[in-house]
C-alpha cells in the first residue's frame, strides 16, 4: 500500500514539473512535422548567406573582405577594423573577423544538417517536398564547405548535428574533401528540380551542376568541369541581354541569386560598393584592376564608375546600381551565373586541348563585351584567361583570390600589388580559439 502510494505520489510529481511547450518557440519535432516550418528552417540559411556571413554583400562578406585581401579593392578606413586588417594582410589567429567567418559558416552547416536529419525523420509531408528540402540543404552545406576549403585549406567536413561529435572533429584532407563534396552535390542534383525559373532565388539542379562544374575546375578535373558546365549552358540560361542588365532581378544568366528581405529593398552590394564624395572614405577599386582592362571593354564602361576629380579620380564597382530602395525590387545578389559556366567551359576546353571550341567560346565572350575577337588562341592564354575572369568577376565573392590560388599564380600576382605579400597568406589562419577548444584541428596553418 505504502509503495503504491509513493509511486502514485512520485508520478504525480513528475507530471507536475512538466510544462506546456513554449508558444513563442517551436520544438524541433514540431518544426519538422510541418512543411511550412521545415521550409522556414531551411530558408533561414538564405537569410544568413544574404545578410550575415560568407557570401553576404555586407562588409563581413568575402566579396568585400577577400577583395581587400587580394588586389581588387583599396581600403581607406583606418583603425583596427576588419577591412583594414584584411587589406594590409595583417591577419592573426585571434582576428575577430576570421573567427566570425568560421563560426557563422559552420552555423549554417549545422542548420543544414538539422534540416537533413529533421526531414529524414519526418513523415509529415510528401516525397517531393522532402527531396527539395534535403536537396537544398545538401547543396548549401557543400557550398559553404567549398568556400571554407578555399579560405582555410584543410578543414573538418561536418555532417552531424551532435555537438559532442562536432566539438572534436578533425580536418579532412583536401582530396577527400572534393570527393565528399562532389558526392553530396550529385545526390542533391538528383533531388532538385530542373526548371529554369525566370527568377532563381532558390538553388535548382542547375545551381548544383554549376557548383559541380566549379568544383571540378578547382580540382583540375577538366573533363568533369566541361561536362557539368556544358550541361548548364545547354539548359536554357542566356547571356543574350544588355551587359548592364546582368544583375537585375530576372536576369537571364542568373542560375542562383538571393532576393532582399523586403519588397522594394535592393542589394547590400550596392550599399557598400557605391561610394560618393570627392575623396573615397571607405573603399574604392584598385588602380591595378582598373588599369588592367582592355580599351573599350564594356565591363569597364558599365560595371565601374569613375568618381572624384579629373586630377584625382577614383573608381568604385557599379555592378549593382540600386543603392536606395525602389518601388519594386530591381536587383538581386547573384551567386551563380551563366557567365561563369562559359568561362569554365572555356578553361576546360583550353586545358583539354579542344582549341577550336575554346577559341569559339572565348570570342563569343569577347564580342559580347565589345572586344575584338582573337584570330587564334593566344599563346599566353593562361594569363589572359585569368585577366578575363578578373574582369568578369571583380568584387564578386572573392573569385579573383580563389582563381589566383588554384592556378598557383597567387604569390607572383600579389607581389605586384602588395610587396609585403607572403606565400603563407594563401590560407587564412585557423581561429586561435578553435584550436584551443579542439586540438584535433592542429596544426595551425603555416605562417601563423
Amino acid at each position, binding site marked *: 500500500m505504502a509503495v503504491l502510494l509513493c509511486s502514485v505520489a512520485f508520478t504525480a510529481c513528475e507530471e507536475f514539473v512538466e510544462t506546456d511547450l513554449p508558444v513563442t518557440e517551436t520544438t524541433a519535432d514540431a518544426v519538422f512535422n510541418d512543411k511550412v516550418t521545415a521550409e522556414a528552417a531551411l530558408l533561414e540559411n538564405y537569410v544568413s548567406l544574404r545578410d550575415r556571413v560568407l557570401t553576404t554583400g555586407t562588409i563581413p562578406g568575402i566579396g568585400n573582405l577577400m577583395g581587400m585581401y587580394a588586389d581588387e579593392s583599396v581600403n581607406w578606413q583606418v583603425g583596427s577594423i576588419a577591412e583594414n586588417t584584411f587589406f594590409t594582410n595583417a591577419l592573426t589567429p585571434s582576428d575577430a573577423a576570421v573567427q566570425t567567418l568560421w563560426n557563422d559558416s559552420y552555423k549554417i552547416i549545422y542548420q543544414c544538417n538539422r534540416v537533413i536529419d529533421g526531414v529524414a525523420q519526418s513523415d509529415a509531408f510528401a516525397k517531393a517536398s522532402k527531396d527539395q528540402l534535403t536537396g537544398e540543404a545538401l547543396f548549401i552545406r557543400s557550398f559553404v564547405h567549398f568556400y571554407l576549403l578555399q579560405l582555410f585549406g584543410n578543414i573538418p567536413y561536418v555532417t552531424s548535428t551532435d555537438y559532442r561529435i562536432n566539438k572534436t572533429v578533425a580536418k579532412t584532407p583536401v582530396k577527400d574533401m572534393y570527393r565528399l563534396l562532389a558526392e553530396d552535390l550529385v545526390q542533391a542534383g538528383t533531388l532538385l528540380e530542373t526548371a529554369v525559373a525566370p527568377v532563381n532565388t532558390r538553388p535548382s539542379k542547375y545551381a548544383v551542376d554549376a557548383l559541380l562544374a566549379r568544383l571540378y575546375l578547382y580540382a583540375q578535373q577538366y573533363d568533369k568541369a566541361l561536362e557539368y558546365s556544358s550541361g548548364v549552358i545547354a539548359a536554357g540560361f542566356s547571356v543574350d541581354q544588355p551587359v548592364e542588365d546582368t544583375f537585375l532581378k530576372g536576369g537571364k544568366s542568373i542560375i542562383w541569386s538571393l532576393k532582399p528581405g523586403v519588397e522594394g529593398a535592393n542589394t547590400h552590394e550596392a550599399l557598400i560598393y557605391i561610394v560618393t564624395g570627392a575623396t573615397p572614405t571607405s573603399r574604392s577599386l584598385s588602380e591595378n584592376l582598373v588599369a588592367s582592362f582592355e580599351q573599350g571593354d564594356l565591363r569597364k564602361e558599365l560595371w565601374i564608375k569613375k568618381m572624384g576629380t579629373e586630377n584625382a579620380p577614383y573608381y568604385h564597382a557599379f555592378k549593382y546600381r540600386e543603392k536606395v530602395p525602389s518601388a519594386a525590387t530591381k536587383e538581386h545578389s547573384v551567386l551563380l551565373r551563366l557567365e561563369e559556366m562559359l568561362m569554365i567551359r572555356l578553361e576546360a576546353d583550353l586545358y583539354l586541348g579542344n582549341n577550336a571550341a575554346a577559341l569559339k567560346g572565348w570570342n563569343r565572350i569577347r564580342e559580347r563585351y565589345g572586344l575584338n575577337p582573337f584570330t587564334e588562341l593566344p599563346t599566353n592564354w593562361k594569363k589572359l584567361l585569368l585577366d578575363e575572369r578578373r574582369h568578369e568577376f571583380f568584387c564578386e565573392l572573392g573569385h579573383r583570390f580563389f582563381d589566383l590560388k588554384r592556378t598557383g599564380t597567387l604569390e607572383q600576382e600579389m607581389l605586384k600589388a602588395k610587396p609585403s605579400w607572403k606565400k603563407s597568406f594563401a590560407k587564412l589562419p585557423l581561429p586561435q580559439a*578553435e584550436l584551443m577548444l579542439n586540438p584535433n584541428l592542429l596544426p595551425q596553418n603555416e605562417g601563423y
Partner: protein
Amino acid sequence: MYRNYTKPGGSRRLYQKICLVMRLIVVILIASLVQVSAATFGQRITVHQKNASLTSVLKEIRLQSGFDIFYDFKIIPQHQKVSIQLDNATIEEALNTVLKDFKFQYYIDGTIVTIKKKKEPSVLDQIISRFQEIEVRGKVLTENGEFLAGATVAIKGSGRSVKTNEKGDFYLQNVAEKDKLLISYIGYETLELNVKADMGSLTMKIADSKLEEITVNAGYYTVKDKERTGSISKITSKEIGQQPVANPLAAMQGRMAGVHITQSSGTPGGGFDIQIRGRNSLRTEGNAPLYIVDGVPFLSESNSTGDLSVEILRNTANNPLQLINPNDIESIEVLKDADATAIYGSRGANGVVLITTKKGTSQPTVFSLQSHTAIGIVPNFMNLMKTGQYLQMRRDAFSNDGITEFPANAYDVKGTWDAERYTDWQRELIGRKAVNQQVSASLRGGDKHNSFMVQVSTAKDGTVFPGDYGNKRKNLLAQFGHTTADENWKISTQFVRGESDNRLLGVDLTRDALTLAPNAPALYNQDGSLNWENGTWNNPLRWTNQTYKAKNVQWLTAWNLEGKITRNLTFKAVAGYNEMNGDEWKIIPHTIYNPAMGLTSANSSSMQGITKASVWNLEPQLHFEEQFGRHKVTALVGTTFLKQQNAKQVWRASNFGSDAQIQNFLAAKTLRIISNTVSEYAYQAVFTRLNYLYDGRFVVNITGRRDGSSRFGPNKRWGNFGAVGAAWLFGSEKIFENSSWLSFGKLRGSYGITGSDRIGDYQYLDTYQYSGGVYEGGGLAPARLYNPDFSWETNRKMEAAIELSLFNNRVSLSTAYYRNVSDNQLVGVPLPGTTGFATVLANLPAEVENTGWELEFKYRVLSGNDWNWSLFGNWSSNRNKLLEFPGLEASTYKNMYALGQPTSMIYVYDYTGTDPVSGAYTFRDVNGDGVWNAADDKKRIVDLTPRYSAGIGSEASYRNWSLDLLFHAVKQQGTNHALGYGMPGTFTNQPSDAVIVSAQKPSAGYNNVLNAAYSRYVQSQQAFTDASFIRLKNVTLAYSIPNVFASKLSGRIYISGQNVFTWTNYKGLDPESQGITSLPPLRVWSAGFVLNY
C-alpha cells in the same frame, strides 16, 4: 491566594495534590457562597467575645458578613487571644478592630477578604512609612504609540501587580513613594521606574537583547534566536520605521552584515542592487536572492524592457520591491548560510529574503493615521569649470592641435555663443526639490479569537528634474486571522497590493547637467518655447518632450491554515498567489529633435512593453514537537507545488500622422513587434527539518530538500540539497553559571549544499524561433544547441560563528566566517565553432569562491527611567575568487575573467605615464608589438568588489524624545568621476581641476595621437578611483505625544533625514551611484506624524 487557605504540612507532592483539590473545592465553594450571600450580603456584624481565638472570631465574622476570608493558618499565633465588642459594624470596622493587635494586613476584593502577614518594617521603612502612601496611574504604549493592553505593572518586591486595560491604562492604590514599578510584557524590555502619582505615558521597547524571548522567522519554521543554528539577519518595523524611503531595500541598507545593497539611481522607480555574500554565479541574473512575502514567492524580477527604460532609469528600472510599502512590513529576515537556506534548496544559493507584513492583534481596535512630507535634493554638486576657465581650456586645446581658425561647429569658443554667459547647469537641470508625500491610514485590532488589520497608503515621489514628474504609489494591506474556540485551528489571510504609476521624462538629465558648456544658450526663448539657438545646440529640455511611463500593479495573497492534530503534531498549509502586471511606455515625439531638421510626426515613435507574470504556490506541512526530559525534538516535513507564468510583448510604432495619437498603434504607419515571449515554470519539492535540542545547550539542525524544476530536461529534473547546522550554547554550561560577565555564549557552525535554477525556462528544449530575418516568408533558426543534460548549479556553503552576550546582556557580539563555493556553473560552455554555436548551456565545472567575515554588535550604554541609549553596528567583508574555469583562455570569457581573481574584475590598459615628445598618455605594450589592442594589451586587473562595508547606529531616548542615527560605510573602488566627460579640450564641460589633473594637454580632438591615447586612458586603471564613503544614512528625531484628548489619542511626531551627509574622497556626484549618467541618491528630509486612536 488559595494557597493561604490551605493547611500546612505534607510532602511537596502531596501539597501539590491537595492544592489542586482545594482549588476545585474553592471554586465550588465560591460559587455556592455567592448564592448564599445574596441573602446575607451587606449585613452588619455584631460580635461579643472574650479571650477567644482569632480563628473563631474570624469564623464568626465570615458567617455574619457573608464575606469569605482566606488566610494561612501558619501565620495565626495560636496562643494570642482576642477580646472584642462589635455592634452593627461594617466588615472593615470589624476587621480593623479584630486585627489591630496583629501584624496583619487585609485586602477586600468583592466578597473575598485576604489576610496576610505584614512585612516587618526596617528602621528605614519606618521612617519612610511616615510618607503618605499614594495612588499611581499611568499609560503603557508601544514604540509605535499604540496602547499596550495586558502588560503587567508590579510593585517591586511586594508581589502586588495589576494588568493594563485595553487603553493601556493602569491604576494602583496604596503604593509607597519609595516603591519601584516593574512593567513587563512578553517580548518587551521590562521597565523599572520610580513611582509617582502620574506616571504619564510609558513606552515599552521591544526586547531585542533578551535572547530568550526573541524568535526569528526562518521561513518554514520559527526558531528562538538563542537556539538558532543558522545565519539570519533581521530588521523590524522599528528600524524601517519612518524612514522616508519608497523601497524596503533602502531601509535595509547598512543594517545587515553581509547584505550589500547599492542604490544606482535617485530617480523614482530606479532600482537597487542586492548581493548577499557576494556573487556566486557567473551570470549576472543568476545572483539575485529569493524573495518570499508571507510565505509566497515574490515576483522580484524587473519586468522592464531595457530599450524603454535605460535612458532614464539606467538598467535597474521598476524593481518590483518598490511595490511593497515599507510601512506595511513587520519584519525582514535575510537567510544567509547553508543551515538557513538549504531548506529552500535550489532557490537558496543566493540567500533568501523573507518579508513579513503587518498583522492584526488581539487588542482592541486602534485607528492609526500616518503621514509624512519629504523634500529631496541632490546632496552634492560637482565643482565644474566656469565659463572663463572653460573657454581658456578650449582655446588652449585648439592651439595645442595646431588649429588657428576655429571650425564652424565650435560654437562655444568661436563666438557664436555669448562668451560672457554662464549657467550653472547642475542647478538648472537637477537642482529642484523633489517633494515626496505619503499618507496611510490603518485599522488594527482583534480579540482572543480574531484579528484584523487594514492599511491603505498613498504616496507620491517627485523628482529634481524640471517639470512635474514622479511616481505615484498606492498600497493596500488587508489581514484577517481567526482562531477556533478550542484554539486548535487557526486560519489567517493576507492581501498585499501595490500599484505604481511612474511618469518621467525620457532621459536622465544628469549627464547634460554635468557636461553642457557653461556658456551654452538659454533654455527658453522669450515666448516660452524651447530655444534651439539656430540649431547650434541640442536643448537638454527636449527630453522633457519624451516621456517614460510605467504602470505596475502587483498583488499577493497568502492563506495560512494551522491546526493541532495531536498534542505534538501540527498541520500547516500555506497557499499563495502573486501577480504582477506591467505597462511600460517610451514615447518619442518628433519634437525632441531640432526643428531646423524639419521633421514631422512621421518621425515620431512610441514603444510599449506589456508584461504579465503570475505565480501560485501551495505548501502543506506537518510539524512535530516533543520534549522528553532534557531532549527536545522538533521536526517538519512539507511539500511545495509552484507554477509560474510569464508573458511579455514589446511593440514599436512609428511614422504617425499626428503626435496627438502617438499612443494609438492604429495611427502608426509602421508597427513592429520587437519581442514576444511566453513561458511557464513548474516546480515541486519535498522538504524536511529535524531539530534536536539537548538540555538547552546543544542543538543540531538538519534540513533537506528534494527539488524538481521544469527548467531542466526530464532526466535532470530532480536535485537534492541539504545542510547540517549545530550550536553549542556554552554560556549555559555550569562553569559560566554564576559568571558576572558572560550572560550568553554560543558557538555555531553549518555546512550544506544549496542550488540555483535561475537559468530561464525551456533552455533544455530543442527549439526553433523566428530569427527576424525574412526570406520568402521567414526564417526559423535553432534557438540554441540542444543539451537535455544540464542541471542545477550548486553552492556549497560553510559557516562558523560565535555569539556572545556580556555583562547582563548589555553587550552582545557575534562574528561569523563563511566560505561558499559555487560549482557546476550554468553558463554557456565554450565550444568550437564547428558545432554551429559558440557555446552550449551546460554545467561548467567552473568554481567561484566567496569567503568573508561578518561582525555584529549591540551595546546598551544606558538604560534607566529617563535615559536609554544603545549602540549597534555591523561590519562585513567579502572576497570573491574564480577558482577554476576549464577552457577559459579559448572562450569568449577570457577578456572578462582570470583565475584567482574576483569575477567582478575588469581588464584595463596599464597606464604608464606621458610621452615626453607627443605629450600623450602612454600604456604598457604587453606583447611588445608596437600597437595597443584590447585583446592583447588590456592585461592589468582592477578589482571592483567592495572591500568591506559597515553600518553603525545609535538609538537614544530621553523620556518622550528619541534620536536615532545610522551611519553606513563602504570601502571600494569605483568609476572615476572624470570618466564620461570626454577628453579635456573637447566640446564638453569638465571638472574644474581637469586640466591640472590631466597629464595630457587639452586637445579639441584634432590630434589623432592624443585621441587614441585618451580612448585608452579611459580603459586604464586611471578610469577607477577610490569610491569609499561614510554616510549618515538616517537620522530621526521623534517625540512621543503623551495622552491627549482624555487619554484616548496618542502618537508620535518626527523629523527624519536620509543620506544626510557623506564623508568621501570621491570627487564625483556620489560614490554609491558613481559615474555621471545617473542621478545620485537624494538627501531627503521628512517630517511626519503617527496618530493612534
